[in-house]
């Protein structure tokens, strides 16, 4: 299986924190409450929760791409 690359659009983030609740080793929030991606290429065991984070994000700020 190919790996995924995680991107988060800090402009559209509304700080709901759903991503961090789904996976706090890949997603974090900075002091302003805005999403920070800690690892753009998460390990395979995080793949499901990262996908879930993208689904839960109310602002559609998280995108997953298949990484080369």
């Amino acid at each position, binding site marked *: 299986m190919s790996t995924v690359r995680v991107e988060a659009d800090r402009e559209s983030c509304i700080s709901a*924190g759903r991503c961090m609740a789904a996976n706090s080793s890949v997603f974090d929030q900075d002091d302003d409450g805005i999403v920070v991606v800690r690892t753009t290429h998460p390990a395979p065991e995080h793949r499901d929760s990262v996908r*879930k984070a993208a*689904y839960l994000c109310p602002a559609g700020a998280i995108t997953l791409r298949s990484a080369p």
Partner: protein
Amino acid sequence: MTVDTALLPSYPQDRKCPYQPSPGYQELGGEGPLHRVRLFDGKWLWLVTGHSQGRRLLADPRMSADRSRADFPVVLPRFEAPIFKPLALIGFDPPTHSVHRRLLAPDFSLKHVRALRADVTALAHRLIDRITAKGAPADLLNDYALPIPSMVVSELLGVPYDDHEFFEARTVDLLQAKSPEGAEAAGQALWDYLDRLITAKERDAADDGVISRLASRVDGVDLTRDDLLRIALALLIGGHDTTSQMIAMGVVTLLEHPDQLDLLLADADLVPAAVDELLRVVSVTDVSGVRVALEDIEIDGYTVRKGEGVLVSSSMTNRDPEVYPDPYRVDVRRTAGSASRQHMTFGFGIHQCLGQNLARMELEVAFTVLFERLPTLRLAVPRADLAFRKGGTMQGVHTLPVAW
């Protein structure tokens, strides 16, 4: 297109069971994802009961939340009060919405909220101490469910908790008013109160919570003083009635499902998932969001035309069988992995509840401390004697007598 509204089902309809949607909505949910329903003023809007359709519509930038628009649907008479028209955040579209939401984000982030947990736990214990000292019966609403969110939001905003009787009563008057005039009077009282409070904070250059922090940011462009007042009002009224009624209705639901309560008590790790299941089941606001279409929108064979209103039902989207197998069952173990956190109780899209992390934490603490301290908790009156709110969308109980 003209629609003969006389033939449409009416909205809202009262629940028969406190934690299940009204039988009329349940019937509609079985017929499809979108339905025309008639409002009190004879107009109609789209009631959305499909989960996927609700999600997509609330995330669609062609849907406006601007309550000052002439075509914005009025769901209840009280929402005709001028005070509701420019309601901060929830009633604004981008770019104003984005600017205001950004200003508030730091105070509501998951991290900030997690840091408040120990204080909220201590508060819950103090309230139980008081309840046990007084002896049974207690009114769990006024002695526990209301003071927790009310004190938390006062502290967060920097509103003196000593004024809690005033702002709690006026909030209920505002949100439960039967007429626009009643809502306006209550809203104006809160407005004047916050206006005086902000003036005092400006004078003293206070540094005690969100209101002070924002008062120092008022620049007349991105944030006017009126904006600040509206934001303070939205946080004050949004912050305690919803959460307190969710605590109360959650307790009623748990007491009626002792097997689920036992599961919860046996496994502290289950608490967050159980809270999300209770949020799903109770759907305390009954509504995920109200919007008006700015353009024609095609969705799964339906056309929502420009100017038509849309109301996404949380109680029904939360029971879409495509997402929740056996949707009417209360199941605190609903797989945390796939479904449990997709509920629509906090809405979806850019207006998704700003206070959701705070509310989740308060609920986790409230249920945990309550049942840990009073494991034999029970209703002190027959369930049939409990009086629930009628005639609106926001659910609730008037008092909750309990013994232990």
